[in-house]
């Protein structure tokens, strides 16, 4: 069992749920104005979970790419649902949009490969962490998050996907995979640029965006 001493007070949160610096990732968000737009430290990178032998074989490569997009699409759809239930309509719609985009990418791969249905893949989709390069981390969510935050998440994932393919383009022993990876890397880089352009048009959240004066509510 964890012997780590708890570092947070539970009861005080009712009064003023402000992010305390260093304790929550949102601490970064409140200083978003100062940071360069788009800059973000990936939080899911963990030295302890070094990437396993993830370089897929040639035959697996496209199935792997498909799995990445499909997982990302599903994850954004889950986020959209959660936001909808929590009355955050704006962000729900944005995640819905992002999900559809990933689904389009996935469908494009199906079409390109002439596959009638999703390919089975035995590879466990992981990259620098426990999940696929393009799969968003649920712990980045907050029920009061704003479109800017959602786009930051998307940007982070697109960059990871781009970096993953860049890695494959060098590391794979198969020329076909290297070529395919290079192509995908360019596509992901395009997505990165797209998200960045959206971010430019998106208002940066003000300090105190996560303030909710009301305490949590009993349910059961």
């Amino acid at each position, binding site marked *: 069992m964890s012997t780590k001493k*708890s570092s947070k007070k539970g009861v005080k949160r009712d009064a003023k749920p402000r992010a305390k610096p260093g304790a929550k990732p949102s601490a970064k968000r409140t200083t978003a104005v100062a940071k360069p737009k788009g800059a973000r430290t990936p939080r899911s990178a963990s030295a302890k979970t070094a990437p396993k032998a993830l370089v897929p074989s040639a035959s697996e490569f496209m199935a792997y790419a498909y799995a990445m997009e499909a997982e990302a699409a599903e994850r954004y759809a889950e986020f959209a*649902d959660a936001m909808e239930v929590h009355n955050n309509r704006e962000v729900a719609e944005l995640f819905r949009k992002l999900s559809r985009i990933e689904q389009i990418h996935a469908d494009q791969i199906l079409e390109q490969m002439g596959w009638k249905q999703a390919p089975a893949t035995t590879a466990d989709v992981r990259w620098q962490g426990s999940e696929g390069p393009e799969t968003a981390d649920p712990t980045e969510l907050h029920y009061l998050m704003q479109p800017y935050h959602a786009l930051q998440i998307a940007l982070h994932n697109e960059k990871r996907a781009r970096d993953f393919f860049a890695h494959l383009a060098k590391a794979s022993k198969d020329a076909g995979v290297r070529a395919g990876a290079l192509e995908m890397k360019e596509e992901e880089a395009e997505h990165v640029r797209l998200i960045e352009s959206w971010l430019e048009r998106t208002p940066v959240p003000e300090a105190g965006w996560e303030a909710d004066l009301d305490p949590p509510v009993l349910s059961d």
Partner: protein
Amino acid sequence: MNSSATTAAAAAPITAQAFKSDYKPIWCPGCGDYSVLSSFTKAFAKLNLLPENIAVVSGIGCSSRIPAYTTCYGFHGVHGRSLAAAAGLKLARPDLTVVVASGDGDGYSIGGNHFLHACRRNVDLTYVVMDNHVYGMTKGQPSPTTEPDWDSKLSPGGTGLRTFNPLVIALAAGANFVARAFAGDPNGTAGIIAEAISTPGFSFVEILSPCVTFRPEQREWKQQVRPAPVTHTDDAARAARRLMTDDGFNIGVLYKGERKPYQPPIGKGKKHPSDLEAEFAL
């Protein structure tokens, strides 16, 4: 292995999506339980089960809301008694795959006694506890796995009590499969749950599942978890020693035994009630 004879047809393998219902969870965005739900569905799909042959039994609490979010049969019972209800179900219907879902409050506090006896009895169940070191649904009270110094309204200044070590208790009480998982790794967790279901007897999986609302510092868990440094053992004493000295963040299957599951025969006797009358006849 559960004795369900009907699995999905090999031609069109069932997807994880088929196990997810349309009912949207009310869990706070960022809650680890979303990942656990995903792991459930992936595990069921991996084992090629059918929703109608699975029963998800739960108690009361955020984690216990999970049955309705699946397309399986579900039983959302009363606080702390999910293991009892599940045992009854499995003993009467050994053909079903019975998965029990609970939280650290529901499972280790009010459910503590049933936990001991479920491990001892070793019915073929899979018990998944989503541990977030707090009572979430009733607004943040300490649970048996909460650190002693965690301040709350009900225990100002902290309980001052040692935390409960459910994995060691499970071993001591006779559980046949003990594992720890982490919600931040849904695929890994799915694999562990699938193995737990496939292993006959009482399989216990503790899933560290962060609570973003009452324990936001648990976001750091993803930096602290690691794969268990050694493969699982079938020696209960060795497993207990490991568990009593680990820091609570070793992830993976930690113990796997060979105990035969408890399942008295049901539906086997063929006598008719009238066959029993002879005893009373003069």
